[in-house]
Protein backbone atom coordinates (compact mmCIF):
# COMPACT_ATOMS: atom_id res chain seq x y z
CA UNK A 1 0.00 0.00 0.00
CA UNK A 2 1.38 3.36 -0.93
CA UNK A 3 1.99 6.16 1.50
CA UNK A 4 -0.92 8.21 0.17
CA UNK A 5 -3.32 5.28 0.65
CA UNK A 6 -2.21 4.88 4.25
CA UNK A 7 -2.73 8.59 4.74
CA UNK A 8 -6.23 8.45 3.25
CA UNK A 9 -7.15 5.47 5.40
CA UNK A 10 -5.86 7.26 8.49
CA UNK A 11 -7.86 10.37 7.66
CA UNK A 12 -10.99 8.31 7.12
CA UNK A 13 -10.56 6.63 10.51
CA UNK A 14 -10.00 10.02 12.12
CA UNK A 15 -13.13 11.39 10.50
CA UNK A 16 -15.20 8.44 11.71
CA UNK A 17 -14.09 8.94 15.31
CA UNK A 18 -14.05 12.72 15.26
CA UNK A 19 -17.51 13.23 13.83
CA UNK A 20 -19.33 10.22 15.26
CA UNK A 21 -22.27 11.11 17.46
CA UNK A 22 -21.20 10.68 21.06
CA UNK A 23 -23.09 7.98 22.89
CA UNK A 24 -24.56 7.95 26.33
CA UNK A 25 -24.88 10.80 28.78
CA UNK A 26 -22.34 12.77 30.76
CA UNK A 27 -21.32 10.90 33.88
CA UNK A 28 -21.56 12.80 37.14
CA UNK A 29 -18.30 13.64 38.84
CA UNK A 30 -18.39 10.57 41.09
CA UNK A 31 -20.65 7.57 41.62
CA UNK A 32 -21.59 9.04 44.99
CA UNK A 33 -23.60 11.70 43.18
CA UNK A 34 -26.15 9.06 42.19
CA UNK A 35 -28.90 8.06 44.63
CA UNK A 36 -27.84 4.41 44.35
CA UNK A 37 -24.14 3.59 44.20
CA UNK A 38 -21.70 0.83 44.96
CA UNK A 39 -18.10 -0.18 44.36
CA UNK A 40 -16.59 -3.56 43.64
CA UNK A 41 -13.17 -4.62 42.41
CA UNK A 42 -12.23 -0.97 42.03
CA UNK A 43 -15.16 -0.26 39.73
CA UNK A 44 -17.62 2.31 41.03
CA UNK A 45 -21.17 2.31 39.82
CA UNK A 46 -24.04 4.73 40.24
CA UNK A 47 -27.65 4.52 39.10
CA UNK A 48 -30.93 6.35 39.25
CA UNK A 49 -34.40 5.26 38.16
CA UNK A 50 -36.02 7.87 35.95
CA UNK A 51 -39.46 9.01 37.02
CA UNK A 52 -42.22 9.17 34.42
CA UNK A 53 -41.81 12.93 34.24
CA UNK A 54 -38.05 12.69 33.80
CA UNK A 55 -38.48 10.11 31.05
CA UNK A 56 -40.92 12.44 29.33
CA UNK A 57 -38.52 15.35 29.60
CA UNK A 58 -35.42 13.48 28.48
CA UNK A 59 -36.87 11.53 25.58
CA UNK A 60 -39.02 12.29 22.59
CA UNK A 61 -39.91 8.60 22.43
CA UNK A 62 -42.77 7.75 24.73
CA UNK A 63 -40.90 5.32 26.95
CA UNK A 64 -43.46 5.40 29.74
CA UNK A 65 -45.67 3.16 27.63
CA UNK A 66 -43.25 0.31 27.46
CA UNK A 67 -40.42 0.31 29.90
CA UNK A 68 -38.51 1.58 32.87
CA UNK A 69 -35.47 3.72 32.27
CA UNK A 70 -32.40 3.63 34.49
CA UNK A 71 -29.46 5.97 34.13
CA UNK A 72 -26.27 4.12 34.94
CA UNK A 73 -22.71 5.39 35.29
CA UNK A 74 -19.63 3.20 35.53
CA UNK A 75 -16.23 4.38 36.75
CA UNK A 76 -13.47 1.90 35.84
CA UNK A 77 -10.31 1.63 37.86
CA UNK A 78 -7.53 3.87 36.55
CA UNK A 79 -5.54 2.25 33.81
CA UNK A 80 -7.85 -0.74 33.55
CA UNK A 81 -10.34 -1.62 30.89
CA UNK A 82 -13.92 -2.41 31.71
CA UNK A 83 -15.96 -4.39 29.25
CA UNK A 84 -19.58 -3.28 29.30
CA UNK A 85 -22.39 -5.40 27.93
CA UNK A 86 -26.15 -4.95 28.22
CA UNK A 87 -26.42 -8.64 29.05
CA UNK A 88 -24.78 -7.98 32.40
CA UNK A 89 -27.64 -5.77 33.59
CA UNK A 90 -30.99 -6.91 34.87
CA UNK A 91 -33.79 -5.31 36.84
CA UNK A 92 -35.73 -7.10 39.53
CA UNK A 93 -38.89 -6.02 41.29
CA UNK A 94 -38.18 -6.47 44.98
CA UNK A 95 -40.30 -9.22 46.43
CA UNK A 96 -40.61 -11.13 43.16
CA UNK A 97 -38.47 -13.79 41.57
CA UNK A 98 -38.63 -12.49 38.04
CA UNK A 99 -36.11 -10.16 36.52
CA UNK A 100 -35.81 -8.56 33.11
CA UNK A 101 -32.67 -7.96 31.10
CA UNK A 102 -31.88 -4.59 29.62
CA UNK A 103 -33.29 -4.38 26.11
CA UNK A 104 -31.66 -2.97 23.02
CA UNK A 105 -32.74 0.24 21.34
CA UNK A 106 -33.94 -1.77 18.35
CA UNK A 107 -36.28 -3.87 20.46
CA UNK A 108 -37.70 -0.94 22.40
CA UNK A 109 -38.27 1.20 19.31
CA UNK A 110 -40.08 -1.69 17.64
CA UNK A 111 -42.33 -2.08 20.68
CA UNK A 112 -43.08 1.64 20.75
CA UNK A 113 -43.92 1.68 17.06
CA UNK A 114 -46.30 -1.24 17.48
CA UNK A 115 -48.03 0.44 20.41
CA UNK A 116 -48.34 3.75 18.58
CA UNK A 117 -49.70 2.21 15.41
CA UNK A 118 -52.34 0.27 17.32
CA UNK A 119 -54.05 3.39 18.63
CA UNK A 120 -56.54 5.61 16.84
CA UNK A 121 -57.94 9.03 17.57
CA UNK A 122 -61.63 9.77 17.63
CA UNK A 123 -62.04 13.51 17.18
CA UNK A 124 -65.28 15.15 18.25
CA UNK A 125 -65.94 18.64 16.86
CA UNK A 126 -69.03 20.44 18.12
CA UNK A 127 -70.35 23.36 16.13
CA UNK A 128 -72.94 26.03 16.76
CA UNK A 129 -74.33 28.85 14.67
CA UNK A 130 -76.74 31.69 15.13
CA UNK A 131 -78.11 34.07 12.57
CA UNK A 132 -80.75 36.62 11.81
CA UNK A 133 -82.71 36.77 8.60
CA UNK A 134 -84.98 39.59 7.58
CA UNK A 135 -87.03 40.58 4.58
CA UNK A 136 -90.33 41.74 3.21
CA UNK A 137 -93.22 39.32 3.33
CA UNK A 138 -96.75 39.64 1.96
CA UNK A 139 -99.65 38.76 4.11
CA UNK A 140 -101.71 36.21 2.09
CA UNK A 141 -104.95 37.59 3.48
CA UNK A 142 -104.53 41.32 3.14
CA UNK A 143 -101.80 41.27 0.48
CA UNK A 144 -100.00 44.03 2.31
CA UNK A 145 -96.24 43.90 2.48
CA UNK A 146 -94.65 43.98 5.89
CA UNK A 147 -91.16 43.67 7.22
CA UNK A 148 -90.24 40.77 9.35
CA UNK A 149 -87.29 38.83 10.63
CA UNK A 150 -86.29 35.91 12.72
CA UNK A 151 -83.38 34.47 14.59
CA UNK A 152 -82.29 31.00 13.74
CA UNK A 153 -79.82 28.71 15.47
CA UNK A 154 -77.95 25.65 14.40
CA UNK A 155 -75.93 23.08 16.31
CA UNK A 156 -74.06 20.01 15.23
CA UNK A 157 -71.40 17.55 16.18
CA UNK A 158 -68.84 16.13 13.82
CA UNK A 159 -67.13 12.88 14.67
CA UNK A 160 -63.98 11.86 12.85
CA UNK A 161 -61.88 8.75 13.14
CA UNK A 162 -58.17 9.26 12.64
CA UNK A 163 -55.81 6.98 10.84
CA UNK A 164 -54.04 4.29 12.83
CA UNK A 165 -51.01 5.72 14.56
CA UNK A 166 -52.42 9.19 14.43
CA UNK A 167 -50.75 10.23 17.65
CA UNK A 168 -47.33 9.85 16.05
CA UNK A 169 -44.57 7.31 16.37
CA UNK A 170 -46.23 4.64 14.29
CA UNK A 171 -44.31 4.81 11.03
CA UNK A 172 -41.09 3.13 10.01
CA UNK A 173 -39.40 6.51 9.84
CA UNK A 174 -40.47 7.17 13.43
CA UNK A 175 -39.12 3.82 14.53
CA UNK A 176 -35.73 4.68 13.04
CA UNK A 177 -35.74 8.02 14.87
CA UNK A 178 -36.68 6.39 18.16
CA UNK A 179 -34.01 3.75 17.66
CA UNK A 180 -31.44 6.45 16.97
CA UNK A 181 -32.44 8.39 20.06
CA UNK A 182 -32.44 5.38 22.36
CA UNK A 183 -29.16 4.15 20.92
CA UNK A 184 -27.41 7.50 21.17
CA UNK A 185 -28.57 8.06 24.75
CA UNK A 186 -28.06 4.46 25.83
CA UNK A 187 -25.15 3.17 27.88
CA UNK A 188 -22.27 2.56 25.47
CA UNK A 189 -21.18 -1.05 25.16
CA UNK A 190 -17.63 -2.29 24.75
CA UNK A 191 -14.31 -1.74 26.48
CA UNK A 192 -13.90 1.59 28.27
CA UNK A 193 -11.18 3.18 30.35
CA UNK A 194 -12.89 6.42 31.32
CA UNK A 195 -16.16 6.91 33.21
CA UNK A 196 -19.22 6.35 31.04
CA UNK A 197 -22.90 6.89 31.61
CA UNK A 198 -26.09 6.26 29.72
CA UNK A 199 -29.58 4.90 29.91
CA UNK A 200 -30.72 1.31 30.19
CA UNK A 201 -34.21 0.32 29.05
CA UNK A 202 -36.03 -2.45 30.83
CA UNK A 203 -39.21 -3.68 29.11
CA UNK A 204 -41.56 -3.78 32.05
CA UNK A 205 -45.07 -3.25 30.77
CA UNK A 206 -46.43 -1.44 33.78
CA UNK A 207 -44.77 0.31 36.62
CA UNK A 208 -46.37 -1.15 39.71
CA UNK A 209 -47.41 1.38 42.32
CA UNK A 210 -45.17 1.43 45.39
CA UNK A 211 -42.94 -1.18 43.80
CA UNK A 212 -39.22 -1.06 44.46
CA UNK A 213 -36.60 -2.19 42.04
CA UNK A 214 -33.08 -3.54 42.20
CA UNK A 215 -30.52 -3.20 39.46
CA UNK A 216 -28.21 -6.18 39.21
CA UNK A 217 -24.89 -5.98 37.44
CA UNK A 218 -22.58 -8.94 36.86
CA UNK A 219 -19.04 -7.71 37.29
CA UNK A 220 -16.29 -10.29 36.86
CA UNK A 221 -18.69 -13.05 37.86
CA UNK A 222 -19.88 -11.25 40.98
CA UNK A 223 -23.26 -9.65 41.32
CA UNK A 224 -23.51 -5.98 42.26
CA UNK A 225 -26.98 -5.01 43.49
CA UNK A 226 -28.25 -1.44 43.64
CA UNK A 227 -31.59 -0.60 45.20
CA UNK A 228 -33.04 2.02 42.90
CA UNK A 229 -34.79 5.21 43.86
CA UNK A 230 -36.17 7.94 41.62
Amino acid sequence: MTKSKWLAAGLACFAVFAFATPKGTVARSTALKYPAHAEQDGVAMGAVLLSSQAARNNFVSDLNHCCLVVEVALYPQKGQNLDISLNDFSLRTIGTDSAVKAASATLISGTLQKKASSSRDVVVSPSAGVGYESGVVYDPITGQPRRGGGVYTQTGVGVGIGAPGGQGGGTDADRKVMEAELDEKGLPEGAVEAPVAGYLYFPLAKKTKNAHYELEYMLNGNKVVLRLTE
Partner: protein
Amino acid sequence: MRKTAISLGLALALGVLQSYCVAQTQAQNSENTTQSPTISAVAGNPPSTASDKPAENQGRKWRVKLGPVLMGASYSRFGGPVYYPYGLSPFDGYYRAWLWDPYWAYPLSYPAGYFGRNDGRGEVKITLEPRTVDPKLAEIYVDNAFAGTADHLKNMWLEPGAYDLSILSRDGASYRRRIYVLSGRSLKIAAKLNPPNPGEMKEPKP
Protein backbone atom coordinates in the same frame (compact mmCIF):
# COMPACT_ATOMS: atom_id res chain seq x y z
CA MET B 1 -75.43 50.48 4.61
CA ARG B 2 -76.37 49.54 8.14
CA LYS B 3 -76.97 45.96 7.08
CA THR B 4 -73.66 45.79 5.35
CA ALA B 5 -72.01 47.04 8.53
CA ILE B 6 -73.85 44.43 10.57
CA SER B 7 -72.79 41.72 8.14
CA LEU B 8 -69.17 42.81 8.27
CA GLY B 9 -69.27 43.02 12.04
CA LEU B 10 -70.71 39.55 12.31
CA ALA B 11 -68.15 38.18 9.90
CA LEU B 12 -65.32 39.76 11.87
CA ALA B 13 -66.71 38.46 15.16
CA LEU B 14 -67.01 35.05 13.61
CA GLY B 15 -63.41 35.13 12.48
CA VAL B 16 -62.13 36.15 15.91
CA LEU B 17 -64.28 33.58 17.65
CA GLN B 18 -63.19 30.89 15.28
CA SER B 19 -59.49 31.69 15.79
CA TYR B 20 -59.99 31.69 19.54
CA CYS B 21 -61.74 28.35 19.50
CA VAL B 22 -59.08 26.76 17.35
CA ALA B 23 -56.34 28.18 19.57
CA GLN B 24 -58.08 26.77 22.64
CA THR B 25 -58.39 23.41 21.04
CA GLN B 26 -54.77 23.41 20.03
CA ALA B 27 -53.70 24.35 23.51
CA GLN B 28 -55.59 21.34 24.80
CA ASN B 29 -53.82 19.06 22.47
CA SER B 30 -50.63 20.35 21.00
CA GLU B 31 -50.06 17.08 19.22
CA ASN B 32 -53.00 17.80 17.05
CA THR B 33 -51.56 20.94 15.54
CA THR B 34 -50.27 21.12 12.03
CA GLN B 35 -49.20 23.96 9.86
CA SER B 36 -47.76 24.60 6.47
CA PRO B 37 -44.19 23.42 6.31
CA THR B 38 -41.56 26.04 6.82
CA ILE B 39 -38.62 23.78 6.20
CA SER B 40 -38.76 20.76 4.01
CA ALA B 41 -36.75 17.63 4.41
CA VAL B 42 -33.15 18.12 5.36
CA ALA B 43 -30.49 16.08 3.66
CA GLY B 44 -29.40 13.00 5.46
CA ASN B 45 -32.83 11.94 6.59
CA PRO B 46 -34.91 9.51 4.65
CA PRO B 47 -37.96 11.01 2.99
CA SER B 48 -41.34 9.51 3.67
CA THR B 49 -42.07 6.57 1.46
CA ALA B 50 -44.94 4.25 0.95
CA SER B 51 -43.31 1.84 3.37
CA ASP B 52 -43.87 4.40 6.14
CA LYS B 53 -47.47 3.31 6.45
CA PRO B 54 -48.27 2.13 9.95
CA ALA B 55 -48.30 -1.57 10.44
CA GLU B 56 -51.67 -3.21 10.67
CA ASN B 57 -52.34 -4.43 14.13
CA GLN B 58 -55.04 -6.17 15.96
CA GLY B 59 -56.70 -4.80 19.08
CA ARG B 60 -56.49 -1.09 18.36
CA LYS B 61 -56.76 1.42 21.17
CA TRP B 62 -59.07 4.39 20.76
CA ARG B 63 -58.51 7.84 22.18
CA VAL B 64 -61.28 10.39 22.17
CA LYS B 65 -60.12 13.95 21.52
CA LEU B 66 -61.94 17.22 21.34
CA GLY B 67 -61.52 18.67 17.89
CA PRO B 68 -61.96 22.27 16.82
CA VAL B 69 -65.05 23.88 18.31
CA LEU B 70 -66.80 25.81 15.57
CA MET B 71 -69.11 28.71 16.16
CA GLY B 72 -70.69 30.94 13.57
CA ALA B 73 -73.06 33.82 13.16
CA SER B 74 -74.61 35.34 10.08
CA TYR B 75 -77.16 37.79 8.85
CA SER B 76 -79.14 37.53 5.67
CA ARG B 77 -81.93 39.44 4.00
CA PHE B 78 -84.21 38.31 1.28
CA GLY B 79 -86.27 40.52 -0.95
CA GLY B 80 -89.29 38.33 -1.35
CA PRO B 81 -91.99 38.16 -2.35
CA VAL B 82 -92.58 35.32 0.02
CA TYR B 83 -96.01 34.76 1.46
CA TYR B 84 -96.51 34.69 5.14
CA PRO B 85 -96.13 32.58 7.18
CA TYR B 86 -93.56 30.61 5.17
CA GLY B 87 -91.09 33.36 4.50
CA LEU B 88 -89.34 33.64 7.78
CA SER B 89 -88.99 30.07 8.79
CA PRO B 90 -85.36 29.25 9.51
CA PHE B 91 -85.81 26.36 7.09
CA ASP B 92 -87.04 28.43 4.18
CA GLY B 93 -83.67 29.52 2.92
CA TYR B 94 -82.53 26.18 1.68
CA TYR B 95 -80.67 27.78 -1.16
CA ARG B 96 -78.98 30.10 1.31
CA ALA B 97 -77.90 27.35 3.63
CA TRP B 98 -74.26 28.21 3.06
CA LEU B 99 -74.87 31.51 4.78
CA TRP B 100 -75.85 30.15 8.12
CA ASP B 101 -73.55 27.19 8.07
CA PRO B 102 -70.71 28.04 10.44
CA TYR B 103 -68.30 26.44 7.99
CA TRP B 104 -68.92 29.16 5.47
CA ALA B 105 -66.10 31.28 6.83
CA TYR B 106 -63.41 28.66 6.25
CA PRO B 107 -62.32 29.75 2.81
CA LEU B 108 -61.37 33.09 4.37
CA SER B 109 -58.80 31.65 6.71
CA TYR B 110 -57.78 28.07 7.14
CA PRO B 111 -56.79 27.69 10.75
CA ALA B 112 -53.66 25.84 11.72
CA GLY B 113 -54.47 22.20 12.19
CA TYR B 114 -57.30 22.15 9.69
CA PHE B 115 -55.47 19.96 7.25
CA GLY B 116 -54.41 17.33 9.77
CA ARG B 117 -50.93 16.28 10.52
CA ASN B 118 -49.13 17.79 7.63
CA ASP B 119 -48.21 14.60 5.82
CA GLY B 120 -46.03 12.99 8.40
CA ARG B 121 -43.86 15.84 9.64
CA GLY B 122 -43.15 16.75 13.23
CA GLU B 123 -43.23 20.19 14.75
CA VAL B 124 -40.37 21.94 16.49
CA LYS B 125 -41.27 25.00 18.53
CA ILE B 126 -38.37 27.20 19.54
CA THR B 127 -38.35 29.91 22.15
CA LEU B 128 -35.24 31.84 23.05
CA GLU B 129 -34.02 32.44 26.58
CA PRO B 130 -33.34 34.92 27.96
CA ARG B 131 -36.15 36.87 26.39
CA THR B 132 -33.81 39.78 25.86
CA VAL B 133 -32.21 37.97 22.94
CA ASP B 134 -33.44 39.53 19.73
CA PRO B 135 -34.90 36.74 17.57
CA LYS B 136 -34.03 38.69 14.45
CA LEU B 137 -30.36 38.41 15.34
CA ALA B 138 -30.45 34.73 16.27
CA GLU B 139 -29.66 32.41 13.38
CA ILE B 140 -30.93 28.85 13.39
CA TYR B 141 -28.94 26.05 11.76
CA VAL B 142 -30.29 22.55 11.19
CA ASP B 143 -27.60 19.95 10.48
CA ASN B 144 -25.15 22.81 9.96
CA ALA B 145 -27.28 24.38 7.24
CA PHE B 146 -28.78 27.81 7.71
CA ALA B 147 -32.51 27.53 8.22
CA GLY B 148 -33.45 31.10 9.04
CA THR B 149 -33.64 33.56 11.87
CA ALA B 150 -35.50 32.80 15.06
CA ASP B 151 -38.18 35.40 14.44
CA HIS B 152 -39.29 33.50 11.34
CA LEU B 153 -38.78 30.00 12.69
CA LYS B 154 -40.76 29.87 15.87
CA ASN B 155 -42.37 26.78 14.40
CA MET B 156 -40.60 24.39 12.09
CA TRP B 157 -41.99 21.29 10.47
CA LEU B 158 -39.39 18.64 9.83
CA GLU B 159 -39.40 15.14 8.43
CA PRO B 160 -38.98 12.48 11.13
CA GLY B 161 -35.29 12.23 11.90
CA ALA B 162 -32.43 13.19 14.17
CA TYR B 163 -30.99 16.65 13.64
CA ASP B 164 -28.25 18.82 15.06
CA LEU B 165 -29.87 22.10 16.00
CA SER B 166 -27.67 25.16 16.50
CA ILE B 167 -28.70 28.68 17.37
CA LEU B 168 -26.14 31.44 17.11
CA SER B 169 -26.68 35.00 18.17
CA ARG B 170 -24.81 37.93 16.69
CA ASP B 171 -23.21 38.66 20.06
CA GLY B 172 -21.63 35.20 20.08
CA ALA B 173 -24.09 33.45 22.36
CA SER B 174 -24.91 29.96 21.19
CA TYR B 175 -27.08 26.93 21.81
CA ARG B 176 -26.57 23.44 20.48
CA ARG B 177 -28.70 20.37 20.84
CA ARG B 178 -29.42 17.12 19.10
CA ILE B 179 -33.12 16.84 18.47
CA TYR B 180 -35.30 13.92 17.47
CA VAL B 181 -38.43 14.63 15.47
CA LEU B 182 -41.34 12.19 15.25
CA SER B 183 -44.24 12.55 12.88
CA GLY B 184 -47.28 14.25 14.36
CA ARG B 185 -45.45 15.13 17.55
CA SER B 186 -44.58 18.54 18.84
CA LEU B 187 -41.17 19.21 20.33
CA LYS B 188 -40.84 22.33 22.44
CA ILE B 189 -37.37 23.74 22.85
CA ALA B 190 -36.57 26.53 25.26
CA ALA B 191 -33.16 27.44 23.89
CA LYS B 192 -31.03 28.95 26.60
CA LEU B 193 -28.25 30.70 24.78
CA ASN B 194 -24.89 30.49 26.50
CA PRO B 195 -23.03 33.79 26.38
CA PRO B 196 -19.45 33.61 25.11
CA ASN B 197 -16.75 33.63 27.78
CA PRO B 198 -14.91 36.94 28.00
CA GLY B 199 -11.76 36.85 25.93
CA GLU B 200 -12.97 33.79 24.07
CA MET B 201 -13.21 33.93 20.31
CA LYS B 202 -16.65 34.08 18.80
CA GLU B 203 -17.92 30.62 17.91
CA PRO B 204 -17.59 30.06 14.17
CA LYS B 205 -20.75 29.55 12.18
CA PRO B 206 -21.33 26.00 11.03
